[in-house]
C-alpha cells in the first residue's frame, strides 16, 4: 500500500510538469498581451516594462525562469494588479472557493446518496418518481437560473437568508447556504440517479439473495451487503466531481458575490495576465491531481479485489 502511494505520487510530477509547460506556451500563443491597451503606451516605456518583467528575453529563457520560480513556490508578480503577487491573490481567493466547493460536494454526496437509497428501496413508487423528477430538474436547469430564483425567494421575498457576501461579512455562515445549494444541485442530482441505479443493481445480485437466504433482516442486508458495493461508482465519480465543482463555482461566485477565485480567473484570462493565469492553472491542476489520487486510495480501501503492488 505505502509503495503504491509513493509510486503513484512520483507519477504526479511529470503530469504536473506537462501541464505547466503546455499552458505556459499556449497562453503565449494567444494574441494580445498584458500590456496591450487601446491607448498606445510610448515604446520606450513599454520597453522598460517588458524589461522589468523579463519579457524581452527569448521565450525559452522565460519558461525556465518561470519553472524555477514555481519550484520555489513563487508564482511571480501580477501584471495587472501591480501591488499584489500572484501568491497573495490566489492565497486570499482559493480558500474561499475550496470551502464553497467542499461544502457543496459534501452536501451533494450526503443528500444524493440519501435520495438514491430512498428511491431505490421505493422503486417505481411515488417516492421514487418524485425524487427522480427532482433529479432531472437538477441536472437540466442551469446554475444561473437556479441561483437568482433562490435569491428571489429566500432572500428578497422570505428574507431568511442574505442575498450575497461571504462568511467574513456580518451575515456570517448563512451566506454559504444559497451558493452551496446552487452549486451542489447538478452534482446532487447526478449522484442521486447514479446511486439509485447501482443500489437497484446490487439488490438484484446473487450475493444479496444469499444474504437474504441466510435469514438476515432486510435492514442488515442493505446496510451490510448492499451499500458498500453500491457506493463504489460514486467514489469513482468524486474525483472528477470535485474538480468540476471547484471550476464550476465561477458562475455561482459571480451571482452571490463570493470573493473566490472565479472573478480573478475570468479577469486574468481576459487581461492576458500571464502569471495569474498560470497560477490558476497550477492550483487547479494540483487540486485535480490530488482529488484523483485520494479517490484511487479510497477505492482500494473499499474494494478488496483491488490490490496495490
Amino acid at each position, binding site marked *: 500500500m505505502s509503495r503504491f502511494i509513493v509510486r503513484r505520487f512520483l507519477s504526479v510530477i511529470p503530469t504536473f510538469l506537462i501541464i505547466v509547460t503546455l499552458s505556459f506556451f499556449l497562453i503565449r500563443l494567444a494574441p494580445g498581451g498584458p500590456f496591450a491597451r487601446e491607448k498606445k503606451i510610448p515604446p520606450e516605456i513599454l520597453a522598460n516594462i517588458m524589461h522589468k518583467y523579463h519579457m524581452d528575453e527569448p521565450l525559452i529563457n522565460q519558461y525556465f525562469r518561470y519553472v524555477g520560480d514555481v519550484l520555489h513556490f513563487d508564482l511571480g508578480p501580477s501584471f495587472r494588479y501591480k501591488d499584489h503577487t500572484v501568491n497573495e491573490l490566489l492565497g486570499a481567493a482559493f480558500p474561499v472557493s475550496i470551502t464553497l466547493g467542499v461544502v457543496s460536494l459534501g452536501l451533494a454526496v450526503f443528500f444524493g446518496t440519501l435520495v438514491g437509497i430512498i428511491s431505490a428501496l421505493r422503486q417505481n413508487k411515488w417516492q421514487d418518481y418524485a425524487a427522480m423528477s427532482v433529479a432531472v430538474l437538477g441536472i437540466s436547469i442551469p446554475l444561473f437560473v437556479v441561483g437568482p430564483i433562490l435569491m428571489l425567494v429566500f432572500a428578497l421575498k422570505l428574507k431568511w437568508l442574505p442575498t450575497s457576501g461571504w462568511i467574513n461579512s456580518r451575515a456570517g455562515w448563512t451566506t454559504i447556504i444559497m451558493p452551496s445549494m446552487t452549486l451542489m444541485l447538478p452534482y446532487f442530482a447526478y449522484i442521486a440517479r447514479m446511486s439509485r441505479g447501482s443500489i437497484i443493481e446490487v439488490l438484484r445480485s446473487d*450475493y444479496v439473495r444469499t444474504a*437474504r437466504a*441466510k*435469514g438476515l433482516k432486510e435492514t442488515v442486508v442493505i446496510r451490510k451487503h448492499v451499500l*458498500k458495493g453500491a457506493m463504489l461508482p460514486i467514489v469513482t465519480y468524486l474525483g472528477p466531481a470535485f474538480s468540476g465543482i471547484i471550476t464550476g463555482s465561477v458562475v455561482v461566485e459571480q451571482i452571490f458575490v463570493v470573493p473566490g477565485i472565479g472573478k480573478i480567473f475570468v479577469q486574468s484570462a481576459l487581461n492576458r495576465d500571464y502569471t495569474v493565469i498560470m497560477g490558476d492553472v497550477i492550483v487547479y491542476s494540483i487540486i485535480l491531481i490530488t482529488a484523483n489520487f485520494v479517490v484511487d486510495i479510497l477505492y482500494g480501501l*473499499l474494494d*478488496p*479485489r483491488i490490490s496495490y503492488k
Partner: protein
Amino acid sequence: MTDDVILQVKDLKAYFKLDEGLLKAVDGVSFDLRKGETLGIVGESGSGKSVTNLAIMRLIPSPPGRIAGGEVEFMGKDILKMSEEEVRKIRGNKISMIFQDPMTCLNPFLRISTQMVETIVLHQGLDKKAAKDKAIEMLKLAGIPAPEKRIDQYPHQFSGGMRQRVMIAMALSCEPEILIADEPTTALDVTIQAQILELINDLSARLGTAVILITHSLGVVAGMCDAICVMYAGRIVERGNADEIFADPKHPYTQGLIKSVPRLDKISTQRLYSIPGQPPNVINLPDCCPFFPRCERAMDVCKTKYPKVAELSAKRSVACWLYGEGK
C-alpha cells in the same frame, strides 16, 4: 402425513406478472420431503425448479412475482402463512440454500469470516469468537485446507470449487433440517462437480440434513437421490423413487429425458436421441398438457385438458392421460 415427512408442499403456485401477461412459473406443485432424504428436482431451464424452491423460502422477488396459492408445511407450520420474522428464523437456520454460481453468490466486499459468522451469531446466539471457531470447523468439514488462515480472506482469493465449498459450509453451519441446492455444480468444472456432490452427500448424511437437489442433469440425480420429481412447464409431471423412475419411466417426457442420456454400456452407432421441439412459453398457457406438441404418444384429450394426476402408488404419481382413469 407420516411422521418422517418434514416438508410437505401442496399445490404451490408462484406467478409473475409481466408486461406480456401472467407467467405461471410454478403452477400447482406438490411433493413431500422425508427426514434425511435426498430429493432431486429435474427439469429443463425455465421449468420452474428454482422458483419452486425460492417460493418455499419465500424469496421470490416481488414485484413482479407472488405466491399465488398452496401450502408449504414445515415441521407442522405453513411457511406461507408465517410472519416475515418467523420466516427469517427458518432461513439459513432450519432451511438453507446454496446456489448455482459460487462466483457471484458470496459478497465480494466482505471476508469469509464476516459472512459466515453473521449467520451463526444470528441463529445460534453464539458470541463472535465461538461463532468463528464454529465457522472454521465447518470449513474444515467442507474440505478447505488451512481454514484458520483462509477464513480471513476475501471470496476472490478462492477458486470456484472452493467458493462452493465455502457456500456449503456456510449453509450447513446451523445444521439445518433441509438444504436446498439449486444446481450447485452447473457453474463448475466437471472434475470438481463430482467432488462437490460427494461433499453435499457426505455432510448431509453426517448432519442428518434432507437435501433438495435441483438439477437438469439426470446423471447427478441418479447418483445421489432417493426420490425424484420431474418438472415440466411449472408442474411436476412424474414423481417417484429414483430406482423406479430410471427402471420404468412412465411419462413420455421422462422417457424422452432418459433416452437422451448417452450410455456407456450400450455403445450405439445411431445419433443420440433428443426430444423434438422446444419447451413451451409458460405465459398464458392454455388448459392442455403442455407437453403434447412434443409428445410421440399425444392423443386428442391432451390438447384440451391438463391430465389428472394418476397416483400409481404412495410415492409414485404421473400426470399423463396415458395412465389412471383418463385412459
